[in-house]
């Protein structure tokens, strides 16, 4: 059978299987096994455990459970609320200060290795009720947190970036740095929109200004700083070339656990077990998808599908920006339905040769891909963040949350366009810190 036709068949089968409610990892194994049996015979399955094990056999992967433990220990504490309150006390005099504090807290919390929904939950629990109490429009209150939460996968350290780095064999250090400027750009766009729409809604008059004493402004700082210090330390050790991401992350994980136990009094065995249980669940889930996606791409390449798709696209000789637009469209649609990790693992190995072949930078592409995934996180039908917000504020309809999030999706699209016009936004910082890419 023609590999391209076979490829479309695999695509359709994968979509059908994944939408059936089967877990993503098992679904990928199922599709892979099905096609391997059909085209290479039963014996081809013998290699599956070896491929699976081999995919996990990498020291770089260790950084995933490590960063997850860091995130889970931070999330188990009041750190998110403290961060939010501290910012709020500093920014209370700025117009739209509260929504700015919320977005700022999301961005800072994103700089801790939290997942996107975790960032939403941590900041939103405090931020949304407070914003509503002070008269901010519901759409802005919920939309800003939903969008702010997505920064977690762009601003380093980001598990999504680690997965991209592993799937495409790109430097994780470079990827982390590449997310910084676009992350700040997005925060800026989000803030600009929030201030404008709060002002335009005309409800600002009703908002009481609360003023805080200098003492109140400073008192929360010491509780937030240790975690920030650990993260900065981890990143410094990584870029200083002192240790690899996995090694520094292991030290960071241990330190975060210790800080959570000492400063935030996370001492009951049940609370500690909750942190370990949650991190175990998340790392096992992600690592299993990585292993299963390994089997999936083994199937694709042993049936010559990967190679044929790449060859076919390069023969099309389309304009490279038309190609990039098509890739973006594909990623957005995939992101609507699938979790970021799954999209990256399935799509990156196929897309990257095509994208680099058209002269795009793989690090830059990681940022564009990640912003596409962020859009998926706040869009129906499976936008995780929307449901997290819905859980925090059940009396606000999903429709309001969705409409409130839409302008932020527009901000993300603007960011993608800006990145296309000025690729330096993503590549300048990594090149500056780590030297020009080879």
């Amino acid at each position, binding site marked *: 059978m023609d590999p391209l036709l076979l490829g479309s068949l695999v695509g359709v089968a994968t979509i059908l299987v994944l939408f*059936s409610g089967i*877990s993503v990892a098992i679904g990928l194994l199922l599709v892979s096994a099905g096609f391997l049996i059909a085209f290479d015979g039963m014996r081809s399955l013998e290699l599956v455990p070896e491929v699976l094990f081999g995919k996990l056999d990498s020291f770089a992967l260790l950084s995933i459970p490590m960063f997850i433990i860091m995130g889970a220990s931070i999330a188990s504490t009041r750190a998110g609320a403290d961060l939010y309150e501290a910012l709020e006390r500093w920014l209370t005099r700025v117009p739209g200060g509260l929504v700015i504090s919320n977005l700022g807290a999301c961005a800072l919390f994103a700089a801790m290795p939290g997942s996107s929904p975790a960032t939403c939950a941590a900041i939103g629990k405090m931020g949304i009720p407070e914003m509503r109490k002070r008269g901010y429009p519901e759409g802005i209150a919920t939309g800003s947190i939903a969008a702010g939460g997505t920064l977690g996968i762009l601003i380093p350290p980001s598990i999504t970036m680690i997965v991209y780095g592993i799937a495409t064999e790109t430097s994780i250090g470079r990827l982390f740095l590449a997310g910084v400027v676009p992350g700040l750009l997005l925060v800026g766009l989000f803030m600009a929109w929030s201030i404008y729409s709060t002002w335009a809604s005309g409800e600002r008059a009703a908002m009481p200004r609360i003023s805080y004493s200098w003492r109140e402004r400073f008192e929360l700082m010491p509780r937030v700083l240790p975690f920030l210090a650990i993260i900065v330390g981890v990143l410094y050790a990584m870029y200083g070339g002192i240790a690899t991401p996995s090694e520094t992350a292991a*030290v960071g994980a241990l330190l975060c656990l210790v800080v959570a136990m000492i400063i935030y009094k996370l001492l009951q065995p049940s609370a500690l077990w909750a942190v370990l249980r949650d*991190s*175990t669940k998340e790392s096992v889930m992600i690592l*299993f998808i990585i292993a299963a996606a390994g089997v999936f791409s083994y199937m694709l390449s042993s049936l010559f599908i990967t190679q044929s798709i790449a060859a076919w696209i390069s023969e099309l000789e389309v304009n490279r920006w038309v190609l990039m637009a098509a890739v973006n469209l594909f990623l957005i649609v995939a992101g609507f339905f699938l979790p970021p990790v*799954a999209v990256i693992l399935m799509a990156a190995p196929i897309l990257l040769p095509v994208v680099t072949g058209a002269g795009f930078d793989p690090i830059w592409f990681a940022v564009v891909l990640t912003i596409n995934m962020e859009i998926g996180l706040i869009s129906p039908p499976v936008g995780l963040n929307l449901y997290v917000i819905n859980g925090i504020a059940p009396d606000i309809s999903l429709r309001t949350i969705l409409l409130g999030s839409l302008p932020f999706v527009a901000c993300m699209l603007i960011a993608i366009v800006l990145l296309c016009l000025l690729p330096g936004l993503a590549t300048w910082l990594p090149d500056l810190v780590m030297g020009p890419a080879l």
Partner: protein
Amino acid sequence: MDSAMSRQQPASRSFQHAVGWISEVSGWLAAAMIMIAVLLTCQMIFVRYVLNASTAWQTEVVIYIMIGGTLVGLAFVQKHRGHVNVDLLPLWLGPKAARALAIVTQSAAVLVIAVCLFHGFEFWHLAQSRGWTSDTVTAVPLWIPYLALPVGFGLMLLQLVADLLDTLQGHSGTGGA
């Protein structure tokens, strides 16, 4: 329906309860292994950067412990519905069709993991009978890390069968596979 079920529940669900308990234990084991990987990596850094000594075996052993934790933890994550899924079709279908679909997907999952268990066991057996070792200085006998394949998939298979039984007996509605 509940009262009719409850009469036979103790007998009919004892398998699921036993499996659930095994999966919980495997979750503890997986968490312990991941924590050991954290501590061992920290120990390695301490030895290398503070004591300025060389580390030979740690990197490899840490990777194997992480893989072991992942595979052994599969069943635990399955029990707590932690394996991420996209349930668009079940939501779109009515409850009856969704239940039928759940039976199909859960059976498919049982089948796939059974295949992984079978070949995983063979792979482990091969490594053990031929005395394969890793091609590093440490020369780890590979049957030890490979043992995680049959054990992990075996535990996962048990949990998936228990989930399938639950769905068939109408205990859990449309629990995902």
